[in-house]
């Protein structure tokens, strides 16, 4: 009994500073399970589906994870996502230069993040409430600028679409069925690496952790906590806008409900990845693994010919197990 307690204590000590450990173990367990239980899981198309479909929401997840480490939420990402797509496609249809259109969409999304950040830091209203309000407001804007209907890009795709999200045909055609690998995977990996480095190896990254962990102490040490929070909100907005334009470059259309529910998937991925709702703890890498896990779960259930309805139940179960494990390992219980 004593040796078991010692083992657990050692385990806790070793993994306390590695927030991604639970998500990695969960991902590996699920991978092994589906490899055995789900036919066609270890095929190029299945793996490509997981990577490609995780990559776009994954870019949003990266931003949300940084904001959560800074101690705040953003429930408006799904609505922001829809607005960015509308701005992008409508400005393209209006004849604007593709790069300018993209920059406009990114500017609008970052602006929405700035509004969230300013409301939270200037008024002291919790970000949960603030972004709940802006989630509804931004969704209304998406509906208004889209006149409540679909917007579809019908012209010849500009070269920019290829840079943003072209199919990786050179690789896809090697397989049958042709797989779904797209450039968005590279953007996802690139942004994840850059953000993980910023978070772990720069002063700004330290400020994010300090602001989320103990804002009072951080402020007394000279960390501009309000600025840090506002910048994290802007970053989430920017990454949401970028994910949105990437998706539009592939799907070519946007509807008024695009992105609904994305905010909860993003939070779930971050929590599975080790982030804590109280802030100050988590990692970009863990959140990305959490997103891959959610996508793998969905693909695996389809391959097992199981009803898709149980997806949410299984995701919820994994979420709870992850939170319990993360809480234990981080030494809070």
């Amino acid at each position, binding site marked *: 009994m004593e040796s078991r307690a010692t083992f657990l204590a050692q385990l806790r000590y070793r993994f306390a500073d590695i927030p991604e450990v639970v998500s990695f173990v969960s991902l590996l367990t699920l991978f092994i399970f589906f490899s055995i239980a789900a036919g066609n899981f270890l095929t190029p198309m299945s793996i490509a589906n997981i990577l490609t479909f995780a990559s776009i929401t994954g870019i949003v997840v990266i931003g949300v994870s940084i904001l959560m480490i800074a101690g705040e939420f953003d429930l408006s990402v799904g609505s922001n996502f829809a607005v960015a797509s509308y701005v992008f496609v409508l400005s393209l249809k209006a004849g604007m230069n593709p790069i300018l259109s993209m920059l406009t969409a990114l500017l609008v999304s970052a602006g929405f993040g700035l509004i969230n950040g300013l409301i939270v830091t200037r008024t002291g209203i919790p970000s949960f409430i603030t972004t709940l309000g802006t989630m509804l407001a931004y969704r209304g804007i998406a509906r208004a600028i889209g006149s409540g209907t679909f917007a579809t890009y019908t012209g010849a795709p500009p070269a920019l679409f290829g840079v943003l999200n*072209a199919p990786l045909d050179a690789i896809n055609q090697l397989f049958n069925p042709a797989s779904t690998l797209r450039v968005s995977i590279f953007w996802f990996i690139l942004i994840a690496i850059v953000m993980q*480095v910023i978070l772990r190896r720069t002063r700004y990254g330290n400020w994010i952790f300090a602001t989320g962990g103990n804002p009072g102490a951080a402020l007394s040490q000279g960390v501009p906590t309000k600025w840090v929070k506002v910048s994290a909100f802007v970053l989430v907005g920017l990454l949401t806008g970028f994910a949105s334009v990437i998706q539009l470059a592939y799907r*070519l259309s946007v*509807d008024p409900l695009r992105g609904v529910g994305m905010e909860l998937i993003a939070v779930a991925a971050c929590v599975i990845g080790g982030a804590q709702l109280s802030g100050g703890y988590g990692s970009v890498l863990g959140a990305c693994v959490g997103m891959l896990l959610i996508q793998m779960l969905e693909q695996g259930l*389809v391959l097992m010919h199981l009803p*898709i309805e149980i997806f949410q139940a299984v995701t919820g179960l994994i979420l709870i197990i992850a939170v319990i494990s993360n809480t234990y390992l981080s030494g809070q219980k």
Partner: protein
Amino acid sequence: MNKFIRSAMLVVVCALMLNACAPATPPPTAPPTIPPPTTAPAQAPQPTAVPPTAVPPTVAPTKAPAPTVAPTAAAPAVDPNKKLKLVMVQHALCAWDSFWCVVQKGIETAAKQMNIEVTVLGPDKFDLEKTATLIDQATAAKPDGIGLTVTDAKLFKDPINRAIKAGIPVVAYNAGSGPDKDGIPYLTYIGQDEYQGGYLGGLRMIAAGGKKGVCINQQVGHAGLDLRCKGFVDAFASKNLKAAVLGITDDPAQSQTTISDYATANPDVDAFLTLGPNGANPFYAWLKASGKKAGDVKHGTFDLSPEIVTHIQDGSTLFGIDQQPFLQGYNAVMSLALLLRQNVSPALPVTATGPGFVDKTNVAFVKALAGQYR
């Protein structure tokens, strides 16, 4: 660590450049084992006049189909007992749209009768991007056949072509315009001509005294529902009358509020077309809450449900346009089974299941079937 990051970035940039130089995707071809139908492209009939109530209008092609040609490759062996796994991907589920319970009942009945394993996939809410993703996820499972709704031909084109290229036979049901109009080489579309339904419905409402119309669309972006509204608006325009489209959602409470707000802002609108139970139910709730009586406004709807039948009987609803959802689900499974077991292909690009008008004169006939088989 810095060296690792620099290397990783270099790999990413190289991969992007390599991909930019890669050749474009070759156009997909139909699976080699399935002979493509050789019939001339079906042309949708031009709306002319309101058909008789008791006889549902059909959307048969205007040109007689040419006989199909025998397949050039060796036909697969006939095996009536072949074990089959099918996946049906649709843009809505019974869980949140009661119309789809009837479709799924058709799918499940056919699967049971023919001893086929069928999985039904769909999004948690109306989400076409998610539905497109589900098609790719279904293809990865390499089922024997896929039935799907072509809710947005442009958005679904790539995923459906990937499934066809993988040699998986694909039929469309409920939503689509046929392989020719959609530009996707699936086998057949089993459903109704949506534009016709909307147009003929509009003409009926005008004939009943409607002066200004609104088409209440709960799934804006669904190509089929958009076509219904287009037909409705065109019918009004053909009589020099005005009609608009009101977007609502599948949330009944929110939709009731939207309808109420619209009716308050536009008191001269007297003809309301809803596009299924998820539009009709909030409309009925608004009708009741506003204190209006049967006949105060003209109402017509697509589809049938026990609530719609009750309102046709009491005169609040002029008609329900029946597309026979049970038949759509059943026929989709049966068509795939016939192809995969007996090597029998669908003959026509469009296999019509509607539109058929159910009104006061014939509602008694379908009352017991509404929500079950119709």
